[in-house]
């Protein structure tokens, strides 16, 4: 029978996450069971510590404020406007309301029965993913010691769904691969491979895989005369094989192949190399799925003869990034792959430049990336930030040595510029005599920065605390890193100054109707996601890492380590890490969509889902900045 009112409610819900992820007929069933509540200004919907209702809420009209009483004071935790969900987490967690909700103005809210929604969470993985994303960034509750650490305890049910979602993207492998026994000759194996038109054959004993030979083995081991075609396959096979269970995902397969540097993965019943072989996953299989393949790209980079070729490969890497983001491949994996590609490009640019100069570098050196490339967080084309360190040389040699490296660096930066990495506007590049220094000069430079931390110098030097070896002598790089951490340890006050500078980026408040994001009014319609949201998280991770003397550059890796080092702040660091992942994904997809660096986001163009996503990241920013303030006593200095 026609139900005009339910249809009207459906019409509202369908525009807002997570309801926009639910198919229409299912959503209509929910709409038919909605309760509509009207609240006048300041009327309470639920109070802190109340037992959970049977419904959760979505604001249809008006504004709802969420608040907490702590230490005798009332704190506004969040403001919800049209389309915002609230009061859901306690229902899923089966715990009392952590905060109260009241109408900030006259409001109409829709109450949705949780019992209907439980099925939805199970049946619509995207819904649970959305909920995880919005819960994950809110795990920390700065006012409650009691709830610390247990907020994630009951979320397993949802997590399980998330996993099964990734499983739906499992890699397609070749089933029932052809095998042979270990004692047949290489010739016999080659005949089987030729007959079946396959480029690899698994050597198995009772269908338990023990080794593998590929076309490449025939070429490199037989063709070169190292082995005879009458030798047994056993003598040339790669063993043991890299094995995975049947539900291997595309992402896992990529990682495994990067890690083990193999072209084929064996799929076995239980995933170990002692169980039965059920399939084989080759580079080719993955290429079919992926279109582009990072390993392939890196291979091409190594073979590139000029900067133009590198540029072409880098553009393919951009497509790869886009594909990954669309497929919702975890961002840490995406950054890893893209960083590897960028590193390979830089390496190749250095090698090509050395060839052009025609003489080998006179002494040991290392090329390092600083800033976002140093942190391995560069997903889009951004500026190049790099530097170079060379071994200490005698005064008489110095001039020539430095001249060589400056020449090299100039050539490298030119090539990178052709590839698409713009010159650094602040000239933080190895081609700048200031950033092409001997190890002693670098140590002196860091000492100066750390001992005399005036704000202008800090702002300039901050980028150098994220430095990662790209090419060259590892020892030089390690020496430099160790001495920097040593200086900081001796001069802890430096961290206070570093903290103070980073706190000059206050967290955004949120986007709601009349509340404006940028308080300064400049760039009113544009949200500077890089400076306002990503940078504060990057900065905080850096300061805490330097404080603990961690030699890690990647922000996600830093937070992960910090969770171990400071278990009492695990929730805080976890929420920061989650927020960072969301923001980085967001920036990347925005950048790809608009073909720019993704630094600015036009708020008006955002969907409600994206606005919610962004908003959920603001709390961790605020919390970690508070923690910085307290830990490093930033208020006590200048």
């Amino acid at each position, binding site marked *: *029978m*026609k*139900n*005009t*009112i*339910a249809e*009207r*409610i459906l*019409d509202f819900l369908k525009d807002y996450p997570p309801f926009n992820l639910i198919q229409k007929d299912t959503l209509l069933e929910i*709409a*038919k*069971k*909605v*309760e*509509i*509540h*009207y609240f*006048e200004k300041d009327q309470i919907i639920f109070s802190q510590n109340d037992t959970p209702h049977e419904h959760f809420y979505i604001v249809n009209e008006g504004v709802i404020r969420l608040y907490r009483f702590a230490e005798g004071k009332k704190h506004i935790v969040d403001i919800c406007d049209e389309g915002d969900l609230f009061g859901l987490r306690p229902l899923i967690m089966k715990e009392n309301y952590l905060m109260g909700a009241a109408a900030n103005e*006259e409001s*109409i809210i829709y*109450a949705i029965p949780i019992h209907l929604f439980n099925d939805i969470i199970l049946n619509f993985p995207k819904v649970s993913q959305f909920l995880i994303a919005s819960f994950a960034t809110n795990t920390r509750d700065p006012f409650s010691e009691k709830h610390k650490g247990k907020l994630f305890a009951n979320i397993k049910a949802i997590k399980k769904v998330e996993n099964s979602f990734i499983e739906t993207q499992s890699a397609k492998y070749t089933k029932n691969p052809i095998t042979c026994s270990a004692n047949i000759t290489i010739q016999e194996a080659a005949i089987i491979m030729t007959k079946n038109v396959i480029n690899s054959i698994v050597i198995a004993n009772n269908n338990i895989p023990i080794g593998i030979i590929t076309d490449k083995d025939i070429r490199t081991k037989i063709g070169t005369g190292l082995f005879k075609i009458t030798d047994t396959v056993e003598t040339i096979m790669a063993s043991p094989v890299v094995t995975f269970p049947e539900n291997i995902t595309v992402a896992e397969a990529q990682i495994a192949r990067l890690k083990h540097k193999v072209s084929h993965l064996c799929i076995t019943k239980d995933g170990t190399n002692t169980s039965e072989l059920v399939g084989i996953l080759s580079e080719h299989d993955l290429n079919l799925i992926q279109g582009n393949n990072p390993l392939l790209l890196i291979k091409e980079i190594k073979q590139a003869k000029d900067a133009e070729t590198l540029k072409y490969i880098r553009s393919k890497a951009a497509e790869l990034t886009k594909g990954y983001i669309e497929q919702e491949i975890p961002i840490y994996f995406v950054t890893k792959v893209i960083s590897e590609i960028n590193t390979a490009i830089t390496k190749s640019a250095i090698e090509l430049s050395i060839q052009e100069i025609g003489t080998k570098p006179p002494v040991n050196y290392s090329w390092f990336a600083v800033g976002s490339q140093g942190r391995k967080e560069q997903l889009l084309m951004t500026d190049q930030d790099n530097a170079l360190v060379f071994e200490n040389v005698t005064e008489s040699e110095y001039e020539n040595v430095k001249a060589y490296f400056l020449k090299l660096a100039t050539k490298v930066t030119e090539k990178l510029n052709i590839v698409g990495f713009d010159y650094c506007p602040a000239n933080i590049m190895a081609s700048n005599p200031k950033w092409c220094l001997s190890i002693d000069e670098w140590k002196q430079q860091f000492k100066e920065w750390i001992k005399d931390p005036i704000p202008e110098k800090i702002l300039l030097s901050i980028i150098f605390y994220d430095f990662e070896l790209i090419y060259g002598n590892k020892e030089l790089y390690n020496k430099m890193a160790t001495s920097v951490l040593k200086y900081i340890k001796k001069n802890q006050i430096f961290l206070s100054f570093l903290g103070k500078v980073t706190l000059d980026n206050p967290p955004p408040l949120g986007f709601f109707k009349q509340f404006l994001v940028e308080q300064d009014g400049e760039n009113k319609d544009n949200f500077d996601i890089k400076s306002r949201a990503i940078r504060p998280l990057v900065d905080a991770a850096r300061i805490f890492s330097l404080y603990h003397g961690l030699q890690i550059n990647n922000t996600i890796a830093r937070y992960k380590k910090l969770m171990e080092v400071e278990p009492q702040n695990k929730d805080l660091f976890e929420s920061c890490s989650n927020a960072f992942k969301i923001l980085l994904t967001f920036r990347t997809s925005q950048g790809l969509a608009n073909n720019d660096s993704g630094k600015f986001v036009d708020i008006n163009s955002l969907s409600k889902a994206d606005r919610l996503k962004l908003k959920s990241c603001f709390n961790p920013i605020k919390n970690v900045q508070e923690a910085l303030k307290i830990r490093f006593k930033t208020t006590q200095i200048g």
Partner: protein
Amino acid sequence: MWNWFKHKNYPDFWKEYLKTFKIKQPKSIEKTRFIVFDTETTGLDTVKDRILSIGAIAITNGIIDVADNFEIYLKQDEFNTDTVEIHGILKEGNIEKFSEEKAIEYFINYLQNAVLIAHHAAFDVKMINAALTRMNLPKLKNKSIDTGILYKKLDGKTGNHFNLDALCKEFNIPKHDRHTASGDAFITALLFLKIISKLKKERTVYYSDLFRTTNNKGLI
């Protein structure tokens, strides 16, 4: 004797309906089941014109319960092409339609002893009663509230006629599905909640105040 005899011959659904009035009513705004309803008709003449559709939704304890709603379309021989453009119901539309008798029976089953709310309630109640008369049944026994009259109880409201469109504007209610029975019932439900809330801010509102037709402020 005649009355008793007639009573005997009521159809079962009417007997069930009467039974619900034997239960003591709560006489509190919070506990009462209100049903906000609206009819779309072929015209404004309660004798000649016919009901084309009925839409209704329940309010209990200040909550509009979508699960407790009612929507039905009626087959009528009477048809007035002039009003089609208002309510959009065609004589031979593709919506499932019921005979007047069946539709009224379903509506009565749904109503039970609820307190009725409608904008210009007198008209809609009269339309239902006219249909009941055609079925040889007595009039509705439910109490009813007119949101138009309720509105006039607010401070500073004078004048006589307040149409739904004007009140939607004043109370900031989106006019979705206006001129469909369900759409108007829903709008009226929101209007009712908003008026009550405003009234409560001005003074204590008693259950009995809701039914006063004069602008009597009750026991202040």
